[in-house]
């Protein structure tokens, strides 16, 4: 009694898989860009923003970090319509991913900002830079450089977490795998292939983001 595995039945559906990969990458790219920006904004509030904003941002960060992504997604997609906000599955997925990444990035970037050597701030101050100018030109670039690996890891985590978005019918990779196995009943093979694709995606994304960080953030030289 051997186990018969039929990968061919899955691989023949490569167009569906390719579409799923494209969706996963697209969702990740958009969420990464917007999520990190949101994270930087929140980190700014928490380190030197106005006092009245701090509790709200703090609550947002703690709420997201202590609840599962799937619940956040379901709340946005199923719950918000009750409050009058009706979103498509794709928009709900992006928003959930941005909100999720934003909270984690906020903490990561905050750590980077707080590690700024005091001398840098004093030099900027003595050059008559304003607080905003100091943050944008002196504090933020080295802070991002410092935490880039952690930020990249978090983006990968969100990318892998996006698999859940298939549950609300966003046509990303896990949805494709599910669709394939519902047609040919090769569930195990389908998910093995999907998992392998995710693994390749996470390695490729990590390598690309590391390269991007080196090239663009670090002034075109070894960081």
């Amino acid at each position: 009694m051997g186990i018969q595995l039929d990968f061919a039945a899955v691989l023949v559906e490569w167009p569906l898989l390719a579409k799923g990969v494209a969706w996963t990458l697209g969702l990740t790219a958009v969420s990464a860009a917007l999520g990190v920006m949101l994270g930087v904004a929140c980190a700014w509030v928490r380190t030197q923003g106005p006092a009245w904003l701090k509790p709200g941002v703090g609550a947002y960060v703690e709420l997201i970090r202590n609840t599962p992504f799937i619940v956040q997604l379901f709340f946005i997609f199923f719950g918000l319509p009750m409050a009058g906000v009706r979103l498509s599955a794709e928009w709900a997925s992006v928003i959930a991913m941005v909100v999720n990444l934003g909270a984690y990035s906020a903490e990561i970037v905050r750590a980077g900002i707080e590690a700024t050597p005091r001398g840098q701030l004093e030099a900027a101050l003595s050059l008559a830079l304003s607080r905003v100018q100091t943050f944008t030109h002196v504090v933020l670039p080295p802070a991002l450089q410092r935490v880039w690996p952690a930020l990249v890891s978090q983006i990968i985590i969100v990318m892998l977490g996006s698999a859940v978005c298939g549950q609300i019918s966003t046509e990303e990779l896990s949805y494709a795998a599910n669709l394939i196995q519902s047609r040919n009943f090769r569930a195990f093979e389908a998910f093995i292939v999907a998992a392998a694709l995710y693994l390749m995606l996470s390695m490729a994304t990590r390598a690309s983001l590391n390269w991007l960080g080196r090239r663009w953030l670090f002034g075109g030289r070894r960081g």
Partner: protein
Amino acid sequence: MVEFSLWDILRNLLLAARWTVVLSLIAFVGGGLVGLALLVARTTPSLWLQKAVGAYVQLFQGTPLLMQLFLAYFGLALLGWDTSAWTSAAVALTLYSSAFLTEIWHGCVKSIPLGQWEAAKSLALNFGEQLRHIILPQAARVAIPPTVGFLVQVVKGTALASVIGFVELTKAGTMITNATFKPFVVYSMVGLLYFALCYPISRYARSLESRFHAHSH
């Protein structure tokens, strides 16, 4: 249409939350035991073992937990074993936790200065004794805050078990939503219940972290 009160909803969610807690503990403890074995394997001089554990970690950290749950569910079925959502979720989450925990602990062991190993060796301790009496006790101290922090990840991970049908807090939320047509209220409560579980653990992990740093300087 039957009217459901807030208390009805909350009560049912709380009953399901028990299973979240049980599954979390099983995965955390089970994952800890497997992770410990993997840690010892990785610390041996065998290059093959080190690479194997490294690959294991890469596998679990580079693929979605959802895929791991599906694979456990369908994979166990292929092997002819019991494929209740319970077993699959327990197996998948245990292996998932073992990979992350062993990676966390490996980092802690690596942070112990080489001089400690050398001192232990020159006192004629064998590898097992070096590990047990010198290295692991020190590594354990460093490891406690991030390990406690990882428990939060496990609790959040159990939410995905709902997708393969395991009735824990999230699945209960979905079922109650379908019965009451109140997704906003239900999922808000689900979120708050997870928060009630995870936030104290997060805070505790943070306080351990600052206590550890206060001591070590």
